[in-house]
């Protein structure tokens, strides 16, 4: 962060380079998001054993299935890196391919989450069953909503690249989306470890 903590006297009064400014803002925003997910996960940890008459974590979690969907989400970080790399080289065609691949993997993850939720509801766990159910569904839904927003950002970036807007910004938008996307991935690693693996 040392690059951002001093002002470059060479830029006499001009607005500092916009990509740089946006990156600082994105980091600040992600800092806020850490507390957001931290609170959701804390709530879950408080309620993990308060299952009432409903199913417990050990009874309901399907670790092999969730491992696969976690793997898919992690792979989307790889394609995101490739998209960013392509945009740095101004290889717009390949960048679009990787952006769409990332969005596709994200949507696959979301589909897996929808499937998982449906399964849980069939097995008798809903938001109203127990505090465990409330905390689990609200936490994972907020994560899913973040993935969905990420997919929209990815598609919008790919779409905007046709209009030539990305070229002017030197691919910066791709880097911002990448920061967000990697963050959402990392949050899932924490959720998968703390909420799934440690509870069964």
């Amino acid at each position, binding site marked *: 962060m040392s690059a*951002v*903590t*001093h*002002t470059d*006297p060479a830029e*006499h*009064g001009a*607005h*500092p380079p*916009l990509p*740089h*400014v946006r990156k*600082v*803002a994105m980091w*600040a*925003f992600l*800092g*806020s*998001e850490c*507390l*957001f997910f931290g*609170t*959701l996960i804390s*709530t879950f940890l*408080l*309620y993990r054993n*308060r299952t*009432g008459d409903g199913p417990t974590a050990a009874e309901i979690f399907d670790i092999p299935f969730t491992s696969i969907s976690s793997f898919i989400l992690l792979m989307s970080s790889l394609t995101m890196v490739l998209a960013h790399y392509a945009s740095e080289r101004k290889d717009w065609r390949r960048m679009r391919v990787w952006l769409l691949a990332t969005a596709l993997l994200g949507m696959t993850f979301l589909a897996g989450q929808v499937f998982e939720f449906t399964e849980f509801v069939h097995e008798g766990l809903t*938001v*109203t069953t*127990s*505090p465990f*159910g*409330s*905390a689990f569904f*609200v936490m994972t839904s907020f994560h899913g909503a973040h993935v969905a927003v990420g997919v929209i950002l990815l598609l*919008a970036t790919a779409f*905007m690249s046709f209009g030539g*807007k990305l070229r002017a910004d030197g691919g910066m938008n791709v880097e911002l989306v990448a920061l967000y996307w990697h963050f959402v991935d990392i949050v899932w690693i924490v959720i998968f470890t703390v909420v799934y693996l440690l509870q069964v």
Partner: protein
Amino acid sequence: MASTDHTAHRGGAWGWITSTDHKKIGILYGVSAIMFFLVGGVEALLIRTQLALPNGDVLSADAYNQLFTMHATTMVFLVVMPAAAAFTNYFLPILLGARDVAFPRLNALSYWIFFFGGMFLTISFFVGGAPDGGWFGYAPLSTQVSEVVRMDYWALGLLILGLASVLSAVNFITTVFTMRAPGMTLMRMPVFAWMAFVVAFLLLFSLPIVTVGLFQVFLDRNLGTLFFQAAGGGDPVLWQHLFWLFGHPEVYVLILPAMGIVSEVLPVFSRKPLFGRSFVIFSGIAIGFMGFGVWAHHMFTSGLGPVAEAAFALTTMFIAVPTGVKIFNWLGTIWGGSIRFKTPMLFSLGFIAMFVIGGLSGVTHSIVPADTQQHDTYYVVAHFHYVLFGGAIFGLFAGVYYWWPKITGRLLHEGWGKLHFWTMLIGFNLTFAPMHILGLAGMPRRTYRYPKGLGFEFWNFVATVGSYLIAVSILVFLWNWWRSRRHGEVAGNDPWDGRTLEWTIPSPPPHYNFATVPTVHSEDSFWHDKYREDEAGIAVPVAAAPTTLDTAAEEDIHMPSPSYYPALSGFGMFIALIGFVYLPVGLVAVAAGLMVTMWGLFGWAMEPLTREPHE
């Protein structure tokens, strides 16, 4: 005037709605804060009128519950926070030597979300009753009775106001990191800019916590989740933790901007640099960190257990240390100065005196057994009004009188200003000092009447008289404001012989702030341009005083163009919020509102920041 004036100076309502100028947005925040201050003030006067005599029958219990809830919610979220945001918006870029904040349109979006959020909370009075569960909405008060939508208004209103504050925080943090003028190192930043910076971090890290809590309250009410439902296995105390993990940093969000203003005013009117400047800054940072470690002292009666109570008692005592450091630094600044008792100085001195009283009664709350006695009595009400009214509001009024000439170009009248100060100081102490006695005598807060014969009559009557005197002082202020529009003395660039960059530019500043971006060589740089010290350390004017008039060519200054997309996005959120209150029918409004919001955001993303001039 090629590229600058073609749109930025557009007047009229549309000019204000579409403005991306940080100064105009700052004025919008300020005017909104004063408007809500009058609303919150009337609520307070109704409460005091009800309590003037035993067995008061001005208000029903139900109306009383709504009024005390909305008085607190309004004053915290719609008055003190936006008033501080007004000064931060207007002066943070100027103090840093910048032409605008990092993201001008995001700044406009923050304002419009705040404005519609405030409207959303306030209209609840007219559609079935305002929130009535207290401003901290303890479960189950906030989660029960789901057929009445009052606390839905509260939860959603606070959610959206929180979003506005997080966006501003991101914006201000980025502004400080990237927009400082050449030579403006972090430690050369004026103390007000520093405090605004710390506040931005406090907001950034505390609001997401309560955001989760508010979602949980809303879902408990509308979806049947069990987060805070004790009967279903949930834990209502979790809400208290989530709320106060936000709520205590929030206390410093309210007071630090006022501390920053006072740290600017005292040196100017004592004609001395701020004593121990870096110590004041580091104390502010220390408060920011420690503010996250004291929240449970609000919960000493909720059964935390002796270990947690002892730990939080200690941290609560410790956080008084950096605050005390600041008090001594302010006294050291005044000490030996050539003091001018202008209105901003009076309000600053009033701030110090009242804040010390409130701070001392705050330390008494760290004694757990004593706090258990005082909990939910008027002693607590007295304490937090001494820090938030005697502290924050006095500090903010110091800022109003200090920066008014810069914002409007005209000075407020000194005589009326001093009358405002003295009536407010006397009225304030008449209102809130007796509450210490009432609280220690056992009068509980939030009860809408008290019987005769408990010894509460006399001091309640005194407090009510005091509150009317505060109302008079506000009328004096409004009159002063009104008359200064035409009859105020023209201020010129530098009416107070100031020390910081805002006094180098015209009053009111041009929309680009600085024709030539300044290069900063020291802290209090404008002072050092005007004065040097002789051998005895006495400030003597520099022979060739620098011209303060800033008249470079304006052609090449590109300022952000106006945009209606931020206001449109904010409006969309407002519609969606109303829909969320009236689920499931409201889903139509939710969908419509979200579509409008998306329209605004996508239009925004496609719109270039600076439009090329059409000439």
